[in-house]
């Protein structure tokens, strides 16, 4: 399967995503520069973590206007798979390819830790190799991961199953203490209405080998390859 990882000025985790895809998963993955306008024959486009454009103005607000984003919007409109991780998630929200916005963590602190997230919908291209209620462990590292969206839209998203991942405790239960950043309804990852665009704050590309502390990130990447192979 062919993957493209987009590099913006200030991207940090582009090489990590490339490593996870190429070296661990033996996929055909390449880097695209944000000024590229063609996605080639990529079957999934990854927007990696980092601080595109130094997080100036708002996280993701400037990257949204990079030339490649027009192509990505067109690709998504045709049903192409787009995965946004951390800053990639912020960019997708700013570009209106995903609903909502990511704001300053409630604690005002940058958080770097491994969290437990619960799979809320396993009938999507990004989660299909998991089961509903599965708990996976992934690292987070962000200062602006507090997910907000108008309450009415949130209710509709919940009804449609667009919330794919939620922060929970290690026992699978959710309360205020188990939501590290203050996200509404403990949201860690959401999809669009068509379920071909997915954004999440945790980093699956940093959980692909036991040496990194766990391999649960592979479940997301393998779900994607399984979806494309179908």
């Amino acid at each position, binding site marked *: 399967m062919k993957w493209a990882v987009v590099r913006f000025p200030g991207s940090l985790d582009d090489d990590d995503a490339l490593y996870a895809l190429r070296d661990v998963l033996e996929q055909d993955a390449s880097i695209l520069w944000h000024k590229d306008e063609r996605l080639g024959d990529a079957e999934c486009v990854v927007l990696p973590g980092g601080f595109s454009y130094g997080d100036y*103005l*708002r996280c993701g*607000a400037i990257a949204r*206007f990079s030339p490649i984003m027009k192509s990505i919007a067109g690709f998504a409109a045709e049903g192409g798979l787009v995965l946004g991780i951390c800053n990639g998630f912020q960019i997708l929200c*700013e570009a209106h390819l995903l609903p*909502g*916005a990511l*704001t*300053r*963590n*409630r*604690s*005002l602190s940058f958080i770097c830790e491994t969290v437990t997230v619960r799979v809320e919908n396993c009938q999507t291209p990004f989660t299909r190799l998991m089961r509903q209620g599965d708990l996976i462990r992934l690292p987070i590292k962000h200062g602006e991961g*507090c997910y*907000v*969206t*108008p309450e009415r839209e949130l209710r509709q998203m919940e009804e449609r199953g667009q919330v794919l991942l939620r922060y929970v405790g290690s026992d699978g239960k959710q309360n205020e203490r188990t939501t590290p950043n*203050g996200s509404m309804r403990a949201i860690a990852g959401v999809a669009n209405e068509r379920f071909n665009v997915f954004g999440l704050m945790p980093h699956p590309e940093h959980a692909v080998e036991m040496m990194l502390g766990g391999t649960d990130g592979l479940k997301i990447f393998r779900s994607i390859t399984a979806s494309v192979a179908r």
Partner: protein
Amino acid sequence: MQVKVFVTPRLGILDPQGRAVEAALANLGFAGVRDVHVGRFIVLAFDAPSKVAAEETVRKMCEQLLANPMIEDYRFEVEPG
């Protein structure tokens, strides 16, 4: 035209920065301070045929880039010059 744009967290949206500053002011002894919000102040200049046309342009700038209308409120002042 000289433009000043004020962007603040939308009322009703959690503003942890505003809350932290409010608490700090209280700790300093400034009693009774409330509704503290921390936002952005942006200045810019451009040529426009009229103030009305400039305001329309600035409104578009705010909607498309300078603010995120889902989580932020904005207001602006346009002065000829």
